[in-house]
């Protein structure tokens, strides 16, 4: 049950036990977050810095709230606007921040692997809040918690992930996590938005959404980014919606109790019909947001415990 990692950089390096440890602790924080007094002292005295090199509202707010509820001193740095524009390298920025003795560094960066690089250069715990198209581990964990609460289990489920798989770190982390937990994963989307070698990940790939959704327990929609919409990857948003958008007719092919998920923010009428997104009997999209705060509290709590129990010289090294 021991979760001993120093950083949370991706799902790839987590064991099944690590995942369950985080989810179980997150359940505790779900309960806490529903109390009138939502405060804990798990991170009291610790400093959390959120460094977002890429615009984000929800994820940053979620991490900020998680840190504050745990009693950490939280600082947000909007990196797009700051030193990066002045030509400072990522590593110099990291070393500068490191000198301020943060305990937890939450990082989002537009380039794959950038958070790993940064983690090599700092003494504190680093949480990956999304790096390029590589990983977004807390999103996969919050999705897993949402699925477990809705379905009562996190294994032997048939789960469809639909849309722009190629450019999605959410898809990669979810494929890794749900695969580790022994679920059947189906990927659905236009081939221009499928990554190379994807079949080797132990997934089934479908061009046709109707075939792909047949009898699945979970439908996970991905956001189609605006820059992919015009001609280069798909011909138009209306053709995309027609073939790969989730509407009532296509959803009817999934199991009657199948849940609908979306990491947000949604493009209504592009990848998902607004009425489905708002259908409280099918959509767990709001629940995902709630689980996000709890999962991030759990992840930071566990990393902080490891930070405190680590031998001092290791931290100084």
């Amino acid at each position, binding site marked *: 049950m021991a979760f001993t990692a120093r950083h949370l950089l991706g799902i*790839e390096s987590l064991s099944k036990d690590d995942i369950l440890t985080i989810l179980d602790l997150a359940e505790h924080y779900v309960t806490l977050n529903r109390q009138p007094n939502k405060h804990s002292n798990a991170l009291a005295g610790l400093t959390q810095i959120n460094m977002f090199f890429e615009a984000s509202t929800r994820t940053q707010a979620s991490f900020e709230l998680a840190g504050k509820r745990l009693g950490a001193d939280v600082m947000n740095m909007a990196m797009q606007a700051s030193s990066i524009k002045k030509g400072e*390298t*990522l*590593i110099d920025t990291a070393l500068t921040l490191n000198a301020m003795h943060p305990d937890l560094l939450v990082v989002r*960066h537009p*380039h*794959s*692997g*950038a958070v*790993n*690089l940064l983690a090599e250069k700092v003494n504190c715990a680093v949480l990956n809040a999304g*790096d*390029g*198209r*590589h*990983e977004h581990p807390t999103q996969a964990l919050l999705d897993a918690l949402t699925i477990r609460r809705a379905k009562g289990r996190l294994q032997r489920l048939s789960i469809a992930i639909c849309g722009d798989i190629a450019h999605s*770190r959410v898809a*990669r982390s979810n494929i890794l996590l749900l695969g580790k937990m022994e679920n059947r994963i189906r990927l659905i989307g236009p081939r221009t938005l499928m*990554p*190379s*070698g*994807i079949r*080797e*990940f132990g997934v089934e790939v479908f061009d046709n959404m109707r075939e792909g959704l047949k009898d699945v327990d979970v439908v996970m929609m991905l956001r189609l980014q605006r820059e992919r919409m015009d001609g280069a990857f798909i011909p138009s948003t209306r053709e995309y919606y027609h073939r790969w958008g989730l509407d009532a007719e296509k959803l009817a092919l999934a199991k009657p109790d199948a849940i609908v998920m979306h990491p947000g923010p949604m493009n209504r009428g592009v990848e998902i019909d607004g009425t489905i997104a708002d259908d409280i009997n099918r959509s767990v999209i709001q629940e995902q947001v709630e689980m996000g705060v709890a999962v991030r509290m759990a992840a930071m709590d566990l990393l902080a415990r490891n930070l405190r129990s680590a031998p001092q010289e290791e931290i100084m090294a």
Partner: protein
Amino acid sequence: MSTLFTNARLIDPEMGREVTGALLVTDGAIAAILPEGDKLPKAAQTIDCNGKVLAPGIVDIGVKIGEPGERHKESFRSAGLAAAAGGVTTMITRADTIPPIDTPETLAFVLERARDQALVRIHPLAALTKGRQGREMTEIGFLLDAGAVGFSDGDAVTSDNRVLARCLTYAGALGALVIGHVQDPGLSNGAAVTSGKFASLRGLPAVSPLAERMGLERDLALLEMTGARYHADQITTAAALGPLKRAKAAGLDVTAGVSIHHLTLNEFDVGDYRTFFKVKPPLRSEGDRMAVVQAVADGLIDIICSMHTPQDEESKRLPFEEAASGAVALETLLPAALRLVHAGALDMPALFRALSLNPARRLGLPGGRLGVGAPADLVLFDPDKPFVLDRFRLRSKSRNTPFDGHRMQGRVLGTWVGGKRVFAWGKDDVA
């Protein structure tokens, strides 16, 4: 002045054989090969090779030197030291400098710096198009007269086939060698790794290995059209070998090279975003690597090169996508290539056919062979000597080698250029 090398394993790639014996150098040229048992002549100086290997010095096509423009990454002096320590006796320098070598005047600068600073022979390449922009051809005739041995825009591949066809036609008429980087520019744009499971797992922009076949086939069709002399700088995929073989069989004047990194490393070596393994084209699958090694053994791929590309720490300590491409290799070329010999993939004469003989022949240079009358450009090495590579002991100004910490086998003991010793292992100073 004469020097006698005794008790050596003499590698003769021209005859494809290895003999034990002695070699006499007089006035900077090889004067005699004396197999074991022959009476040894008198010489001013005798060097006992102790049964180690004496081979023709390496002729390395495509060395990047940071002059002009990036002398902090590599100078003619530092590159010369590295080359001498690596057994490279002739460097064919690239034109992708800042500014590019695209006029006789910049070429003259390079030759002057080379003459004043470098320990080994240097023959420069010149750009094929002005500014390596792929629009107008350079003064190929003047550049040839000024000493360019080949023409290449390096990794700036033009997508304008008409421009390239004219360049090839003009160069062909003058007998100039054109060197192409055979990666389709559209598909390769922005790619950091080869497509496949690993690329997708790391979330890195990737290019299909077929982009190389496409680039090669485009160039081969233009060769058929124009009849130029052509060398493909790096063939790194199995898919490109078929078209190469057919082009050679059809009698096109084409040769191909491969970098040492593509012969000894594969895509998985990138591991956790290790930018020292970011090269152009990107490292390939193990299947491709094995196919390319076999193609070198078969002689289908003619030339092994270092593709020496110095990058400073700042250019490499970046997220993988943003990091600069390329690796230094002048000093590691031979020990890394010896891995292929130790693995049984190549024998010693075949290795030096690819490292020395073929590149010299392709460029019309007199070196690269161990025959009477050839210049005494020699490397003496112990092929079995093990060591662990420490990148901070490299002589290059830049230390971006993927082999840092690797166990290597094969140590250069001495290097001679025109009979003059330019490197001796164990001495701090170069004679």
